């Protein structure tokens, strides 16, 4: 497997395990799980993902984690998202919330959470992962109260907000610019969740709108420093978001190729029409380039190579966009069948578009990217 060249034995094993997991646990029942919120949440799949350690890949060993590099998270996300990106959305959200705590130096909070993790609920951390809280003014306000803080207002689209134990939430505190991050117990008094949000994609990665009135929140890191932690987390995890999209691309391409090899129109297998080959070729090239980008950027991130931050962000912007185009073709190759839920392609189209919005609006992420370069950060050595 060419893709494995340059990976350590450990990562190779992890990749194989993730692939097996995806094939054994995710293919079956994908359509039913996607029926959420009109069907029960897929807690069993989350529990099994927890058992194999997908929610603690980056955590230090002393917290029960695998202390893996970002490359490991990328491999797992890619394999998982090939079959069902909903689980990928959950794994990514938890990793992002953990990363935010880590960037804020809130190791003791991570310890508190993971030292007593028994159920999957304890291991899950919720976060509004399709939003950069710095893009718009937060609707949540934090007020000092004795030693702590009380939060009031709302946060929309908190991913895992109805099934996680705790959430990391952005709130405006005092009259400081920016926002602060708070750790909130999702069972706390005064916290109200909406009905699950019905979304474009990642249906089985549930989200809710939260309304808080005087809910206790533990400040994470320093007040007003939320944007710094968030941008640092984006630097590191953008490549993981790219990996998720790359997985969706590979899944879409494989399904399209298999179908084109079987479907006959105009007296021949459609794979033999040169226009169909052109589309398949464009898909194959995009998926391969995405894989190379993700691998290279993840290596740069883990090795802290010069320009790694922008490499990570560039990979996400590029791969996510290509994934939306590729999955559109992925439906097209299957014609009418591609538009139906039975073939998994329409789900990949929705998931790819949803994944594109991870960690904020695309154009604003593009503007941030160039602003950093204009301000002097070099994208390469």
């Amino acid at each position, binding site marked *: 497997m060419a893709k494995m060249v340059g990976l350590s034995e450990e990562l190779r094993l992890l990749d194989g395990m993730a692939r097996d997991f995806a094939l054994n646990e995710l293919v079956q029942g994908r359509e039913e799980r996607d029926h959420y919120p*009109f069907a029960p949440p897929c807690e069993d799949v989350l529990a099994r993902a927890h058992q194999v350690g997908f929610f603690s890949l980056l955590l230090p060993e002393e917290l029960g984690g695998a202390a893996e590099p970002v490359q490991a998270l990328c491999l797992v996300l890619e394999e998982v998202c090939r079959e069902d990106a909903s689980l990928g959305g959950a794994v990514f959200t938890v990793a992002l919330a953990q990363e935010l705590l880590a960037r804020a130096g809130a190791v003791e909070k991570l310890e508190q959470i993971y030292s007593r993790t028994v159920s999957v609920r304890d291991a899950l951390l919720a976060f*509004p992962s*399709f*939003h950069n809280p710095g*893009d*718009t*003014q937060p609707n949540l306000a934090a007020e000092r109260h004795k030693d702590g803080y009380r939060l009031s207002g709302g946060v*929309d*689209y908190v991913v895992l907000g109805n099934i996680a134990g705790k959430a990391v939430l952005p709130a405006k505190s005092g009259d400081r610019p920016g926002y602060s991050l708070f750790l909130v117990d999702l069972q706390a008094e005064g916290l109200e969740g909406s009905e699950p*949000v*019905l*979304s*474009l*994609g990642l249906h089985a990665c549930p989200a809710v709108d939260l309304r808080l009135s005087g809910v206790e929140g533990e400040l994470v890191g320093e007040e007003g420093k939320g944007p710094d932690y968030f941008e640092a987390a984006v630097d590191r995890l953008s490549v993981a978001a790219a990996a998720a999209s790359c997985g969706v691309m590979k899944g879409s391409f494989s399904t399209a190729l298999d179908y084109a090899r079987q479907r*006959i*129109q*105009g*007296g*021949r297998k459609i794979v*033999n*029409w*040169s*226009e*169909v080959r052109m*589309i398949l070729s464009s898909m194959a090239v995009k998926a391969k380039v995405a894989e190379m980008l993700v691998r290279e950027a993840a290596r740069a991130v883990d090795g802290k190579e010069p320009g790694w931050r922008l490499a990570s962000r560039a990979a996400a912007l590029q791969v996510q966009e290509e994934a*939306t185009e590729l999955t*559109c073709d992925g*439906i*097209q190759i299957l*014609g*009418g069948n*591609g*538009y*139906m*839920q*039975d073939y998994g392609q*329409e789900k990949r*189209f*929705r998931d790819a*578009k*949803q994944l*594109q*919005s991870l960690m*904020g*609006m*695309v*154009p*604003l992420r593009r*503007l941030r990217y160039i602003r950093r370069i204009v301000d002097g950060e070099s994208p390469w050595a």
Partner: protein
Amino acid sequence: MLRKSDSSLLLREFPDFTDTMHSLVAMEKMPRGVVDECREAVALARRFNRTVARNYALELDRRTQEDPTYLPWELVEEANRWGFFTMWIPKLFGGKGWSLTSIAPFVEELASECLAITNLIGVHYFGFSILVATWNIRLIDQISREVVEGEKTGKPCLVSGAVTEPEAGTDAEEVELLARAKVRCHARRVEGGYVVNGRKIFISNGHLSTWHILIAYEDLERPDESMIAFAVKNGTPGFSFGRMEKKMGQKGCPASELVFEDCFIPEENMLVAASRLEEMKLLSRAARRMKRGPRELSMQLIDFVVSATRPGVGAMGAGVARGALELALQFARETVVDGRPLVNHEWVQCLLAEMYMNAALARLSYMEANYANSMYGMARLLGFKPLYYYHRAMPTSVFDRLMPAANRLDAVTSAYRLLVMGGQSEEEERLASGWASLAKVAGTDLGVKNCQLALELMGQAGLRHDRRAEKCLRDAKLLQIYEGTNQLNRLNVFKCLVAPAAPEARAFED
């Protein structure tokens, strides 16, 4: 200055002037009343959107996500009350007789609010177009009058069009492909009619329709030469509904399977048969005049239909492109970034301008195709000025007194066939069909593009069902697939509009 002969030689060079300037030519031919009708149609659609679709579209989509077998009868009844199912049925057949040119702007308007609702209304005219393309006046009249009756009684009577089969989709849309297709819907001629066996899939409105215009084949080895069309009514023994598809979008409009098991269809419900040119005397005269054999006749039938309906799909693309723009604009007005409303950021202004241009380009394409179809397509007679004004001025009741009896006469059918089928040249067929495909591809690709742009701009808000934009994207993707995938339509653009400049080229052979 140029001599006339030089000028006409130059204008015939690729691309031929008449191939590209339909609106210019149409302007002088088109009755002025058509413009008024377009205005009225758009205004009516806007009112429908404000009073019905806007409140209902999301609820319908959500309900059908929950239960993919949900049938939106209340919507069918509402559209029936608004008179939408008879608006474009000619007065000769009891309908309201609006000019066909006005249907596309109407469709665009509806589509800017909800593509599922648009399809549910529009696809009735897809079924109706296949019916009309056969020029079997007796059956057109009978079915049209049932639709009109359904409006009066409040019991909607819709028409579906059934072409696609499990193993034949793209196949079924071009005779070159059809010649090699694995079609399975077989019609065997028996005494007094035909026995049909086979299945049709993805039939929009199948479960909601009363009449189904069915395409079958008498010889499965030579489907291109043995195409046959029937009108099948619900309740016909041997005909039943199969599954309903679980679609990604346009959920409010069902896609059904139609099952035919030893289904006997009487001769009087046979619309036209390519193999029976000789028997259908005047049709055969028309065909002879045009040097059309069974295969060419099949292609003409297909082209009659798609030349009328593909611009409609392009209009749906234009509509959803506009809908996406409107949602993005609203978001940009209400969202503050860096202390300023998004709409005041330069890059957003360029993005919104691009979205506006996409919608406008889609509209230009479908209107151009619309003009081509109104001049060269199957309903061009109705655009002929004296006929148009006569048709418009006469109350339907006058036609109702005269036409039903006349429409039952075989001679009337024959005369129409001679006029319309025999009257269309290959050049005209090529232009109407080529432009219809062009408009379909352009409009639908631009529609999908705008939905994608809207979602990118709206970020998290765009992903939520309650903000509408995600539904636009799910709905729009279907436009690139039905009425021939955009690949098939590109090939048709090549065949009709590019290949004349390369006489050695052969389409669909690869």
